């Protein structure tokens, strides 16, 4: 009978869906492992990419680091698993990763039939088109008959088809699995247009044109054809883990709202402002409610920084991408980043 159990156990592993028979215990699994396993993109400048020292950096990476800081008090306790758009959901469903922070758009289908939940929106994005300036195209409405490079397994692919259908235009897709190969096909001239979330287009334009092409040879067309609220995703079932992911992100936004940065967080500990005291755990309660250390938000801000710092460092003016805050500015400044109050 021992052998049978062994065989059954192996069978469990083989059929990876069986691997999550202990749903609801995700947080315990993460804690027991001593490490958060975070699914990221396969290298997109500004969002998730290994730097010259092999250390992962980017806006998406900072989300993983914030969650690790909340759980462990140490933002470095993260293992990054780069996933293609096609692999990501299966990897998450099967328990290979604890969460996704890889520019995944929150949609109804994914929230329901895929068995996932989404955290707070970390980046408000929209799909756009990148073209070579030589084509002389000024608007996406002029793209009739164009060949379009697109990565498979994304909402991008569906939005693209919808947009061209809605505008009674035709196109030919070139669909390649690896995002690097899609970009290479675009830069080699195999396609007229590269479509993706505009954040990713800016990243591609800034980092990927092969010499002698330069970023200035390419332009992102003005049309934004979809809403893409990018949010971290995790499995249905463990609500506490979900709360931690969501509030780690809110803590970063709240910190920016309250003017707390990684530089001044230690001074802020002495403040009299009650909401800052609650956030930083000087007044205890929030950590207990979340089931983590009272210093959780302090750790995030100290080690990762607030949302604004992370944005500027990775994709904003302090980076080669030079993306303006736009929709991602704080609500006070006309953007959409609006964190629920920590109280």
């Amino acid at each position, binding site marked *: 009978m021992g052998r*049978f159990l062994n*065989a*059954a156990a192996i*069978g*469990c592993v*083989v*059929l990876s*869906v*069986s691997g*999550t*028979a202990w*749903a609801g215990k995700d947080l315990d699994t993460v804690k027991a492992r001593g490490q958060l396993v975070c699914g990221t993109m396969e290298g997109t400048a500004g969002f998730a990419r290994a730097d010259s020292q092999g250390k992962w950096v980017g806006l998406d990476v900072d989300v993983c680091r914030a969650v690790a800081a909340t759980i462990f008090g140490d933002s470095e306790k993260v293992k990054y698993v780069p996933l293609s*758009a*096609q692999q990501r*959901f*299966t990897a998450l*469903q099967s328990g290979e990763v604890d969460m996704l922070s890889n520019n995944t758009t929150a949609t109804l*289908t*994914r929230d*329901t*039939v*895929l*068995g996932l939940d989404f955290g707070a929106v970390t980046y408000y994005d929209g799909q756009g088109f990148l073209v070579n300036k030589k*084509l002389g195209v000024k608007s996406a409405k002029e*793209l*009739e*008959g*164009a*060949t379009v490079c697109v990565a*498979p*397994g*994304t909402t991008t*692919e*569906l939005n*693209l*088809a*919808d947009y*061209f*259908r809605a505008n009674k235009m035709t*196109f*030919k*897709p*070139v*669909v*390649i*699995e*690896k995002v690097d*190969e*899609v970009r*290479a*096909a675009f830069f*080699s*001239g*195999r396609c*007229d247009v590269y479509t993706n979330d505009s954040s990713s287009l800016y990243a591609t334009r800034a980092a990927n044109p092969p010499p002698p092409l330069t970023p200035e040879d390419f332009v992102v067309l003005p049309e934004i054809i979809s809403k893409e609220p990018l949010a971290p995703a995790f*499995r*249905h*079932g463990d609500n506490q883990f979900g709360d931690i992911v969501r509030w780690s992100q809110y803590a970063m936004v709240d910190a920016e709202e309250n003017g707390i940065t990684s530089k001044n967080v230690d001074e802020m500990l002495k403040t009299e402002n009650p909401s800052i005291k609650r956030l930083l755990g000087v007044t205890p309660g929030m950590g207990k409610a979340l089931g983590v250390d009272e210093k959780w938000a302090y750790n995030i801000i100290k080690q990762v920084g607030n949302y604004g710092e992370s944005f500027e460092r990775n994709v904003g003016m302090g980076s080669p991408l030079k993306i303006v805050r736009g929709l991602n500015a704080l609500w006070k400044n006309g953007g959409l980043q609006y964190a629920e109050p920590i109280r």
Partner: protein
Amino acid sequence: MAVETLDSTTRPKVAPWNDPVVRGWVFQIVIVGLVGLLAWFLVTNTLENLARQKIASGYDYLSREAGFEIGDSMIPYSPASTYARAILVGMLNTLKVAVLGIVLSTILGTLIGIGRLSPNWLLSKICEWYVEAFRNVPLLLWLFLFYKLISEAFPGPRQAISLLGSLFLSNRGLYFPVPLADPIHHWMAVGLLVGVVAAFVVKRWAKRRQEATGLPFPTIRAAIALVIGVPLVVWLLGGAPHHMSWPELKGFNFQGGTVIQPEFTALLVGLVIYTSAFIAEIVRSGILALNKGQSEAAMALGLSRAQSMRLVLLPQAMRVIVPPMTSQYLNITKNSSLAIAIGYPDLVAAVNVTINQTGQAIENILIIMAAFLTVSLGISAFMNWYNKRIALRER
């Protein structure tokens, strides 16, 4: 001296747990039971987990609108078509590249294999290098190489290389004119079928006549005439409609005509070149397996080298060649799924997108597996039938 006769029907009486026959049965039943239990456990556990995670299951999604575009399709397809049709498009694309790959790599591989045995030093060396170069590098790298060569080396559509004024070669593929759709084309297809059947009939008749009277008949020329001639006559009878759809540069791309896309070309060329290196070795081994006396006897009869190869050596070598050839044909079919790396929309690509849009991985993977299994078993069945047909009939 009394001779004891061994009677197989009466065996010495032993206890059932010591009886090898009973024991054999018991073990087999237990093993089958365990395998069955394991299968049951895996299926129910998976279903339970899917239900717990509220992941939908079942094949209802097949009739829903797919919503994504496919770049290369043999049948009418649009984003408004269903997932089932998208998967069918992928299946047909896989079959297209597999069938063409099998035919072309067989021809090329046979030529290379024979070439390696040529007394001409240069020819045999070239064939040897070909084999060693192409079979010792992973197929995926060849695919990347050919794809890069096509997409980097050829100019964009606006600077397309024009051949004969109506063929256009660019990094979008090879555009060429095709006849405008006309009802006569269906009848020409029927004519082609009639021509092929007639060619077989003529071949059988010619063979029987040659065996009876020794009179040769130009079978090959007659067959070509029939296969080309019958559709041609149908076309002429139908009033010889000659309106063509010409490729024209409009906006970004060529419109009209038809196109062979770079992804398809790269995949086909990669598969053919890689597999033909293996087939060449199989053909060479098949020929070398023959007794030297066969070729000497053929020479002694006064047959030319080509005749002895075609009439004496190859037919006998086939018996050695066909079984390993089956594996190569299966390999081509399965390797065609590497298409996803260079963006050819094959079955795997279509199903992968479907998985991602519907989230129903298990159902979709089962579809891929069933499809490849069907095609592979079909190839195996055909090759086994062919192998039996050409096997030595021992009397």
